[in-house]
């Protein structure tokens, strides 16, 4: 047998038959386009000047250089070059919170939950729809503690892989059960929204959202687009703390949007990634959803614990869809099961660790109180940094208006810097951000805000 195999192999090699085709399976695969957000990290890491600055610091050199911060990531420049090189925490997301020392934060309520779970978890599969406890608690956050929809089981909900997973499950669900529909996405939006609906093969349209001149909401155009879309269209809305602009409709504006949605019979899908993070009050941040619910819409929601519980890497979130009017309660299970069917061929069932942390925290009144306190601290710090940045810019005598910094809300600020100005920020000041001018407020600290303001002033003063 070995003899026969040997001969076959020799014949292959001599004839060159196998070799040609062997190398050609994936020869045509080109590298994928760089993700506009994640690519910033790579550039930061590859910055030779930054690294040179690190080397200078080893002898306790000039402190200001040390403070060059990756604004998008909020990482305070390390004291030691070796620590940077070997243990650099490679963040996947720019939108990750940092404390006033530029350090990532693990909430105390999370640590406590981990301690309670440690050594007890038996690693078994969760059901396809995920942790029932976690999902129930999560729905209360979005729909209200005493929501009749939850009591009457008129919501189909499954655990999802954070916000991305929740959106993707919905997109797949939309494709499967409304194959002729499209999704209307705001301009601008989180870059990955486009990837998600594209890979789910749901055609995309856009609607006006951001007004570059006012750096606020382009409400009139938004309403026009809502009116002009065909009846019964699907819209993606950011429930609060719009990413990347930080521009949210006012309560009045939300009411008008909801009204127009009723007139047109549109479907509202909310991506709520920052509940609690925007104002510090989760109930307040869910106001837009509450307005739609009161107006009788049947909506869908993607929720994530990445930011507001700091569970980024655990990938914990929830997709919920209100599926039935009062008469059709049993349908709730249909959607839930269908969602699970979409998850089964993707990853079978969701990861357990994060879900357990969430349900431990939300299921314990003391821990939940602690969480609410910690969320407020994070939100307040960001609001504080907005004020500080604006004040610094005004103090520098900038001729431009910076009130949009404090008008906007949440993790991000659309600075209004042009791509060229952003390039100068990077090349001259080693401040990294996405080329649309988005700044992650979480990355600003009392230690670096004046450096940042100075840099922004320098690149924009001649504008």
């Amino acid at each position: 047998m070995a003899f026969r195999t040997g001969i076959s192999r020799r014949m292959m090699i001599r004839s060159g038959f196998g070799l040609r085709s062997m190398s050609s399976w994936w020869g045509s695969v080109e590298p994928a386009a760089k993700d506009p957000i994640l690519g910033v990290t790579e550039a930061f890491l590859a910055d030779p000047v930054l690294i040179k600055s690190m080397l200078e610091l080893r002898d306790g050199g000039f402190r200001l250089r040390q403070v060059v911060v990756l604004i998008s990531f909020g990482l305070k420049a390390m004291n030691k070059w070796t620590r940077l090189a070997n243990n650099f925490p490679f963040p996947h997301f720019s939108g990750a919170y940092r404390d006033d020392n530029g350090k990532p934060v693990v909430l105390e309520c999370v640590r406590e939950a981990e301690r309670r779970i440690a050594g007890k978890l038996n690693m078994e599969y969760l059901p396809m729809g995920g942790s029932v406890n976690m999902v129930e608690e999560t729905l209360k956050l979005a729909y209200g503690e005493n929501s009749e929809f939850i009591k009457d089981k008129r919501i189909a909900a499954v655990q999802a892989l954070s916000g991305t997973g929740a959106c993707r499950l919905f997109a797949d669900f939309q494709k499967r059960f409304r194959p002729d529909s499209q999704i209307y996405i705001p301009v601008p939006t989180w870059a990955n929204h486009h990837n998600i609906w594209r890979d789910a093969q749901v055609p995309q349209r856009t609607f006006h959202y951001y007004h570059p001149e006012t750096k606020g909401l382009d409400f009139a155009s938004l309403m026009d687009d809502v009116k002009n879309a065909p009846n019964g269209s699907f819209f993606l809305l950011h429930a609060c703390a719009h990413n990347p602009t930080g521009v949210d409709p006012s309560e009045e504006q939300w009411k008008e949007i909801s009204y127009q949605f009723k007139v047109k019979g549109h479907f509202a899908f909310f991506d709520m990634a920052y509940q609690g993070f925007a104002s510090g009050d989760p109930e307040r941040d869910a106001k837009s959803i509450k307005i739609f619910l009161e107006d009788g819409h049947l909506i869908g929601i993607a929720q994530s614990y990445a930011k507001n519980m700091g569970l980024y890497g655990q990938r914990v979130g929830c997709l919920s869809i209100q599926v039935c009017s009062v008469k059709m309660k049993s349908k709730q299970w249909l959607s839930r099961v269908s969602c699970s069917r979409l998850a089964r061929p993707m990853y079978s069932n969701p990861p357990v660790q994060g879900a357990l942390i969430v349900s431990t925290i939300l299921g314990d009144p003391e821990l939940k109180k602690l969480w609410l306190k910690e969320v407020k601290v994070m939100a307040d710090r960001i609001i504080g940094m907005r004020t500080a940045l604006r004040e610094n810019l005004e103090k520098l005598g900038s001729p431009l208006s910076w009130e949009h910094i404090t008008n906007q809300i949440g993790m991000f600020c659309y600075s209004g810097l042009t791509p060229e100005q952003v390039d100068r920020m990077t090349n001259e000041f080693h401040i990294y951000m996405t080329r649309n001018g988005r700044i992650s407020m979480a990355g600003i600290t009392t230690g670096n805000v004046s450096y940042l303001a100075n840099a922004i002033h320098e690149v924009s003063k001649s504008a």
Partner: protein
Amino acid sequence: MQRGRMMIKWAHDTVRRRFMSTSAAAIDWWNHVDHAPKDPIMSVTEAFLSDTSPNKINLGVGAYRDDDGRPVVLQCVRDGEVKIAGTEFLESVSASVSSKLVEESVKLIYGKDADFIKEGRFAGVQALSGTGACRLFAEFQRRFYPQSKIYLPIPTWSNHHNIWRDAQVPGRTFHYYHPDSKGLHFAALMDDIKNAPDRSFFLLHPCAHNPTGVDPTEEQWREISNLFKVKNHFPFFDMAYQGFASGDLDKDAKAIRIFLEDGHLIGCAQSFAKNMGLYGHRCSCVDAKQAVAIKSQLQHITRAMYSSPPVHGILLVSTILSDPHLKELWKKELKVVGMFCFSGLSPDQVNRLVKEFHIYMTYDGRIRDVNRAGQGGLPVAVYVYEFISHPCLISRLRLGGIGMVNSC
């Protein structure tokens, strides 16, 4: 003035709300959504959970149980947990942990001295356990070989069909299990390989075939590999049970190493669900020999699915695999003989087992680890034999997946 404004606002809101309630009834968007078909494996567990009999047994889901029927957490995993407890970064694993995991996973399969590992001629990314790894590959296959199909063995894990279907890669089948001999249908398998168009994509189970527990012998693997060379087929291995089949990691990877020696460029999905007991953590690796480009494309696919994989499982696996002491401990704990046995029971017989004995299994007769105590204290194996052969008592049998098939 203020009150006037408030009155106007109140009036406005009231009118608006009245309009809302008298306008067309709330649209029920998903009225037409039908009940999805039950998953043949998960539904067994659901039925089991709602059964109130104290003697019930679940032989459906492929999750390992100890001799008391309890889920097992390996000691190396507990030790690994202690090591990573309180880890600073929960955002994502560092690049070094990430690449360490991939490297260690790849070494497990291909052997730590494989040339192409040293030369970096492989692309690997973490995935959401075996399902996620297969799905990633299926999406990748469709993207770069949009006209291709996937050949799946009969039978195979039911979710394989769902995965490639949802990735929109048409499925074909090839003969595998021989119901009469309850062994490998080797001749038909080789015929199907020959008859498939050149350069077809095949899904292979490198060890502990799920659901049958039937694996080709080493010689048979060599012949399969040889024929794959002649036909230029692409082999994609779903390695879900490395270490679990024979208790020896290298032995269980033999099929893959045969293909490597023969110069194939393969793909492989590895899962740590079973062999590290990390079912719920969804941790695994997809490898395809060749290219940074491939890796970037795989990451591009995951970005639109879930952005990044869950961190806890990755940290655990990478900690265990890169700590020599923990790795040794893990290998020791892996001395379990394969999980599955294909009983050859018919759906009617399975129904009887459920109704009369409260023993749950999938309708294809798949039994997981037939060593449970059943009603009256007799092992399940006895009931199975009583059932299909004759009603005399057989002494308690210790059945491993592969072993049982050979002795049936």
